């Protein structure tokens, strides 16, 4: 399985977010902390949702925040933010969101394999609630199937 890199510093547990923008920005901060994206990438992720709506809430409780490859992306990588209290994104079926994935993709080529890795993990419906309940970054990495 080829998930994008998910180091411990790209994981934030129990973040207090006032609204969806806060939640998405927290995933941007985690991507920046891990060296995957410049700080401006968080704005791009927020803008995608402002422009296109809450479609990034692709499963119950789960948002996949991302923007396009570009100068704000430094390397392929994944961030995971779990929220202390779920927030509404305005999605008709999958709200409220308790887990935000931040995805940075450096180039479109080859990203399908990494996304397939994400599908492997999240096709199991117990993954989102388990991530939401996780209390350590180690536990999150274990649930995502990456070494601990």
């Amino acid at each position, binding site marked *: 399985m080829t998930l994008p890199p998910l180091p411990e510093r790209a994981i934030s547990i129990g973040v207090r977010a006032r609204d969806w923008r806060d939640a998405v920005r927290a995933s941007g901060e985690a991507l920046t902390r891990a060296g995957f994206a410049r700080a401006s990438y968080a704005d791009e992720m927020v803008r*995608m949702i402002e422009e296109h709506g809450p479609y990034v809430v692709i499963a119950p409780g789960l948002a996949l925040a991302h923007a396009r490859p570009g100068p704000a992306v430094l390397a392929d990588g994944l961030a995971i933010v779990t929220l202390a209290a779920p927030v509404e994104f305005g999605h008709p079926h999958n709200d409220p969101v308790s887990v935000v994935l931040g995805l940075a993709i450096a180039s479109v080529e080859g990203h399908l394999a990494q996304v397939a890795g994400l599908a492997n993990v999240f096709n199991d419906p117990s993954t989102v609630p388990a991530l939401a309940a996780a209390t350590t970054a180690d536990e999150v990495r274990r649930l995502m199937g990456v070494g601990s």
Partner: protein
Amino acid sequence: MKIVAICGAGIGSSAILKVNTERVLERLGLEATVEAADVASIKTAAADAQVILTSPEFVEAIGPTFADVVVILNYFDQQELAEKLDAALG
């Protein structure tokens, strides 16, 4: 047969939809090419598509089309995908 998965960026969510659609097609024994595209390129990407897969937000932006527009709520629910693809293609 061609199926197009649409999202805002043409990566990420539409790619997940593409991957899971291919898995479901295989399970159903159906053959089709599945493409991921962004909503801005819908007119060219979907010109020769039979089915467009997307989330509720993009239905309006996709506009009039000869393809079946199928709305997927949970991108990771292969059962939902299978039922809706079966209905659209069957």
